[in-house]
């Protein structure tokens, strides 16, 4: 069936999918692929012509592919632990540092703001130095910030340290980049969905881990105000360990490391200014920016506020509040991949329209449960609301990255980076509006945030593709504009088309026919079924 072959793009559960190079700087896959003397026999997993793995085996640690996957997602996971490590300990920290609610809220905003910029910069770093160094830089250079928590004595220091730790969330980009060069386009959706979801779980695990570490240190004799500082050594140490593992056991590309390989072949790097312009000019980029801000954004906000909420509102002990709060982040293990999978299934049945509806449904349902969470007066109802909320929101994150790869082919990497930055922006905004002052109680803040998310999910109805339509409108009837090729090649000027620079986009356009609804795809083109896909 056509969709199986073309599933290479359709299976975009998450992340920067596309079979070829995904970053803003290079449009040509061959720029970083090196022909090696040895055939594919030396790899533990079956590979394609670019030596990317065609099979995803999460239980294996074989080099280089699965090793890269595991190093990548665990690094990302570790960074999530560090960024949100303060959150479950806030009830202790606020007493030690004499913080007000405003101080705590501002530090929460700061903790997610740094990544807005570092995520954008990480793309360039990976292009220049490889995913290994991108990840290692992120881990090793922010580890000192985590250790610096032991010096903090007041709200200003607290905010500054949390801001600087937050930079490490750029590992999201390096992790996705790494898996994208290691895994074939047909499975990249699932791989990226797992890497993203399992990494995000760190935000849940930290709510469990930090109170437990704190408790053990207290039992060993430290006072609470010293114990929380010692507890911060754990995420810091994890980061250093992961950094060393990545540098020692990781490999940038299937064939070796970037610096030791000789690069041959065409190096047709795209111009950043062009890539940037086409990303920014496309209105859909900004709609995705807002949407991700209210799915991933509120997820990041919840990571910062939920433990303290259960501690204060329901009078739970610190560890108990942590256990309850952690179930929010842990749902990522299956919820995010599930969202991407549901998006793919919807695309098979209804094309792009199905993807957009799934995105809207998951995100709105999640937001409605967020409203319910704020209004729940008893612990069991609050927990139930929170779990349903987490599933809806995290599935929406996965579903959004089922749509993102189709918005642009030329600026794919930058759009993914911008969308990711939108998540952090949304988190900063919601924390600033609802959780940084005493105007609203935390419960009211939660409900208001859910309501705002419902409103800000409505723009998904405006995402319209001439070739596939939108939630409510049909695809364009015009013979020219209803072709995928028209949409993707409109990102290139005539000159560039003359030089044939847009060939990659044309190939992508052919493959993206999977996004037509089933009846349309079957009706007009017999060719997709005969599997004319080359170079998947």
């Amino acid at each position, binding site marked *: 069936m056509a969709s199986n072959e073309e599933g290479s793009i359709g299976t975009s559960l998450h992340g920067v999918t596309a079979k070829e190079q995904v970053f803003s700087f290079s449009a040509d896959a061959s720029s970083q692929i090196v022909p090696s003397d040895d055939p594919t026999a030396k790899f533990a997993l079956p590979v394609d012509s670019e030596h990317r793995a065609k099979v995803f085996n999460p239980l294996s640690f074989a080099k280089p592919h699965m090793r890269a996957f595991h190093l990548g997602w665990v690094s990302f996971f570790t960074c999530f632990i560090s960024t949100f490590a303060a959150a479950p300990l806030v009830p202790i920290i606020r007493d030690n540092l*004499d913080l*007000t609610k405003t101080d705590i809220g501002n530090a929460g905003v700061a903790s997610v703001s740094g990544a807005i910029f570092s995520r954008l910069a990480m793309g360039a770093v990976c292009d220049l130095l490889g995913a290994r160094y991108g990840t*290692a830089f992120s881990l090793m250079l922010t580890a000192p910030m985590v250790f610096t928590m032991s010096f903090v004595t007041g709200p200003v220091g607290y905010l500054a340290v949390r801001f600087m730790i937050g930079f490490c969330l750029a590992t999201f980009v390096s992790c996705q980049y790494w898996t994208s060069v290691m895994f074939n386009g047909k499975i990249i959706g699932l791989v990226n969905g797992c890497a993203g979801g399992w990494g995000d779980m760190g935000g849940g695990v930290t709510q469990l881990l930090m109170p437990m570490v704190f408790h053990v240190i207290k039992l060993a004799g430290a006072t609470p*105000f010293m114990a929380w500082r010692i507890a911060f050594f754990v995420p810091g140490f994890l980061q250093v360990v992961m950094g060393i593992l990545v540098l020692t056991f990781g490999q940038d590309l299937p064939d070796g490391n970037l*610096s030791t390989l000789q690069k041959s072949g065409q190096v047709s790097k795209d111009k950043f200014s062009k890539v940037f312009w086409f990303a920014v000019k496309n209105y859909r980029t900004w709609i995705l920016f807002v949407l991700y801000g209210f799915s991933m954004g509120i997820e990041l906000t919840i990571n910062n506020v939920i433990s303290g909420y259960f501690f204060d509102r329901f009078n739970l002990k610190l560890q108990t509040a942590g256990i309850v709060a952690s179930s929010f982040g842990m749902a990522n293990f299956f919820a995010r991949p599930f969202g991407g999978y549901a998006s793919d299934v919807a695309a098979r049945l209804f094309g792009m329209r199905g993807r957009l509806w799934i995105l809207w449904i998951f995100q709105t349902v999640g937001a409605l449960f967020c409203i319910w969470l704020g209004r729940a007066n008893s612990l069991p*109802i609050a927990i139930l609301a929170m779990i349903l909320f987490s599933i809806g929101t995290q599935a929406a994150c996965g579903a959004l990255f089922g749509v993102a790869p189709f918005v642009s082919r030329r600026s794919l990497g930058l759009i993914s980076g911008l969308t990711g930055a939108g998540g952090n922006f949304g988190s900063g905004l919601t924390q600033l509006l609802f959780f940084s002052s005493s105007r609203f109680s935390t419960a009211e803040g939660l409900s208001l945030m859910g309501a705002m998310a419902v409103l800000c999910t409505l723009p998904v109805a405006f995402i319209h593709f001439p070739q596939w339509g939108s939630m409510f409108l049909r695809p364009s009837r015009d013979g020219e504009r209803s072709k995928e090729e028209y949409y993707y090649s409109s990102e290139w000027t005539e000159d560039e088309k003359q030089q044939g620079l847009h060939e990659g986009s044309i190939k992508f356009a052919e493959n993206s026919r999977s996004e037509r609804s089933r009846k349309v795809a079957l009706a007009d083109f017999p060719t997709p079924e005969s599997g004319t896909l080359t170079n998947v």
Partner: protein
Amino acid sequence: MAIHKIILASFQICLLIQFSHGATKERLFSDLEKGALDVTAKPSRQGVLDAGIDKLSITWKLSSTAKTQASFKTIKVKLCYAPVSQVDRPWRKTENELFKDKTCPHKIITKAYNKSSQSFKYTLERDIPTGTYFVRAYAVDAKDHEVAYGQSTKEAKTTNLFSVQAISGRHKSLDIASICFSVFAVLALLVFFVNEKRKAKIEQSK
């Protein structure tokens, strides 16, 4: 379908638990007898007290105006936040419902009720945060319900307050360990980076 049933069942269980919990929580602070105990709290020195070091001399006795002393079983003495330390800190908020009230989270001592004057020398614990405080003694009956109280300040909670400075929680050994680990992290990265660049140069020159 199985998922639907599970969600429905857990929802019903949650409702049941909620309703069964509802009835018992309505005891209010305003129902307690005010000023049933005369409480004084004298700091061991002038100025801002240091947590973990300075002491408070606390005394309490039955007030001449008390009416409900027949039901007093135990006296719970607690350290409470003055209004100035509650500003912009909703986790220290004063609420009328006793179970929600967060004004007095720090326990000082619990003693059996005795109508003669009692006293206690309290060393400020090392987990007391920086702030302004007063002392309150609750009189509790046999069912562990508060019946009356007395406090070391007036009703407006603006007089007879004392300030506490918390311990910093920092320690030199922590600072040193932190610097060592940080330097190690940055150095390790540099070493790897430089090493690989060197190896790459050697490879290329071959």
